[in-house]
């Protein structure tokens, strides 16, 4: 039994995760619709899907990876924007 887990709070705050995921999804959606933000500007994160595609193709010049290998995330916290990129390489079969 996971005694440590038992003592931890069962309610992990997930609202921020929801917010970040939605920011991404909505940016892609608006990009696909050719929509702009309410402010009239193109969405600040509208280049993210393309950035991800291009990163993926660069990585694929050297390693064979699945589509899910490149993750791009934009997070906003107290006025600071953090662009986080994760590239997962496949495990080696020696």
């Amino acid at each position, binding site marked *: 039994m996971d005694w440590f887990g038992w003592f931890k709070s069962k*309610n992990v*705050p*997930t*609202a*921020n995760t*929801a*917010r970040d*995921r*939605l*920011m991404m*999804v*909505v940016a892609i*959606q*608006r990009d696909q*619709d050719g*929509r702009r*933000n*309410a*402010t009239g500007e193109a969405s600040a994160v509208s280049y993210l899907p393309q950035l991800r595609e291009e990163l993926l193709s660069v990585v694929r010049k050297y390693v064979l990876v699945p589509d899910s290998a490149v993750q791009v995330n934009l997070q906003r916290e107290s006025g600071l924007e953090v662009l986080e990129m994760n590239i997962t390489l496949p495990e080696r079969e020696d």
Partner: protein
Amino acid sequence: MAKIIVVTSGKGGVGKTTTSASFATGLAARGKRTVVIDFDVGLRNLDLIMGCERRVVFDFVNVIQGEANLRQALIKDKQNDKLCILAASQTRDKDALSQDGVERVLNELAKDFDYIVCDSPAGIERGAHLAMYFADEALVVTNPEVSSVRDSDRVLGLLASKTRLTELGNGRVKEHLVLTRYNPQRVEKGEMLSVQDVQDILAVPLLGVIPESQSVLTSSNSGSPVILDQTNDAGVAYDDLVARFLGEDRPHRFLDVQKKGFLSKLFGG
């Protein structure tokens, strides 16, 4: 000139019909001649929420197809004679609504009413499209939950492109965000998207926040729009929403956890 307002959301079950019923009832209570139309052909429900299901003789599709005239199909609200309901048909024919037909009915209603509230079906198919097509303004009903927010964003995209106003280049549909089933306790714990989160994501002006409330179910049980229950937070929030829509300046309530006093804790008030 009558104003046409669509109540829409994309996702089902978020409170479109509840909102349509209370919004229309609230407008009528303020003396506005109001008609509320159920666009959900095949899945009629507004009549139940408004408590007039036994008085439906003719419906929206009957009028469009010329089987009845508007006067026969409009159901007058029992409590407020400024309010009428036009029920949806229960036909399974998806194409029963035609764009010309809807336009004809709306034009005719515009002569006698100040506000025409269109209760959209879920989804983005024909019924939803026609409910929003002729709108001047839109209430986008959203729950603080990922799938609802995403669907609302899709709907905002359609409002910005697939409506008469935008197609004719006459401006755009004025959008309002209505956040329903809001639970400040869960927001405080970080378990639920906050009003601010949803506003940041959707970038639509906030018209009202309706707190999650048991009263919504009990009101629908008895076929009385929740706005009529002014002893309840949700009813009061809908009343604020209508007042704000009509230009009154009302601060948002029920956004924060109500701190319970010692006595109410003790007696469970």
